[in-house]
């Protein structure tokens, strides 16, 4: 239920009339890290699901915290290992799982948005050289203002 609300909130945020581009103070010289500066977005708990070698796609999960004063709007993701990545959300209704493309996902100031199994996820498609079965995958979230939040996600299975 919580997930549904989250995804709906994300959908609504996506439908809202274009808010002015977030005015988060960009770091002077952006270092290639997930945490560009104090007060910048924080990515944690990232992982990519280990799938059979024959799989054509997999899913990436993470938490995004926005400690800044303006909303953080995620509009996509990139990786050197995949030609196409989309933000998707799985919504459950009446026991039926429906996966849908999310145009954008907004992280409100002070909030954390969780990408997790059965909810929001990064759909990693068109692997350039197969999907790695181990190690870690370099990824970056693309923000509405053009910034990239880089992070590394280990490949594995969740501890259930």
């Amino acid at each position: 239920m919580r997930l549904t609300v989250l995804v709906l909130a994300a959908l609504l945020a996506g439908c809202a009339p274009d808010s002015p581009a977030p005015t988060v103070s960009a770091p002077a010289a952006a270092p290639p890290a997930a945490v560009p500066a104090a007060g910048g977005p924080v990515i944690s708990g990232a992982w990519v699901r280990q799938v059979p070698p024959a799989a054509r796609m997999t899913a990436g999960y993470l938490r995004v915290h926005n400690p800044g004063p303006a909303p953080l709007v995620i509009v996509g993701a990139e990786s050197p290992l995949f030609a196409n990545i989309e933000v998707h959300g799985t919504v459950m209704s009446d026991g039926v799982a429906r996966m849908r493309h999310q145009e954008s996902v907004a992280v409100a100031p002070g909030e954390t948005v969780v990408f997790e199994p059965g909810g929001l996820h990064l759909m990693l498609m068109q692997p350039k050289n197969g999907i790695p079965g181990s190690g870690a995958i370099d990824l970056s979230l693309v923000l509405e203002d053009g910034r990239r939040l880089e992070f590394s996600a280990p490949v594995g299975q969740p501890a259930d």
Partner: protein
Amino acid sequence: MSRTAFIAAAAVLAISAAVAGAWFAARMGAPEMPEHARILSAPRPIPQVPGLDHLGHPFGPADFEGRWTVAFFGFTYCPDICPATLQVLATARRLLEDLPERDRPQVVMISVDPGRDSPERLAEYVPFFHPEFRGLAVEAQYLPELTRAFGAAYAYSPLGDNAYTVDHTASLFLVDRQARVAAVFPTPHTAEGIAADLRRFITLESSR
């Protein structure tokens, strides 16, 4: 003794008696009921529709007979729900490894994507999660009859560069040894919950 105190004392006594009764019944070996699965009041036989398992062998209702089976609907172009379900079931299956072979559940993923999931493709995918898991490929024309028996739904929606995704019921279905859909595990699923309920089903079965 005031009237209120008398009622309170009577209530306490009644509750104690009920608790003692329940405890005694449990000690007497009354089998526990499943906690996660919803048991169907009328089990539904699996219809005789042609299908192939992931090795290309014919797979029909007879292949469900004699074993408990956890069956679910999925497809291999599903990056989120289906691998998560397979992973949970793989853990559940390992939690039941101590059972005799005839009581260890069979696990079958029935593809709702006949356009892309050939038996060969299922073979590349399903056994990755557990070597004994089986995939079932059914031609599009027979899927409605099969899913209806399970009470499952599926629908195709455009998505991403794969042209489409498949919306599908994410519940797990327990098929009994007579090849009848006997119970449904609604989402969310945990390996521990599924394994514990399967033990309860087996105990219930042997107590009859």
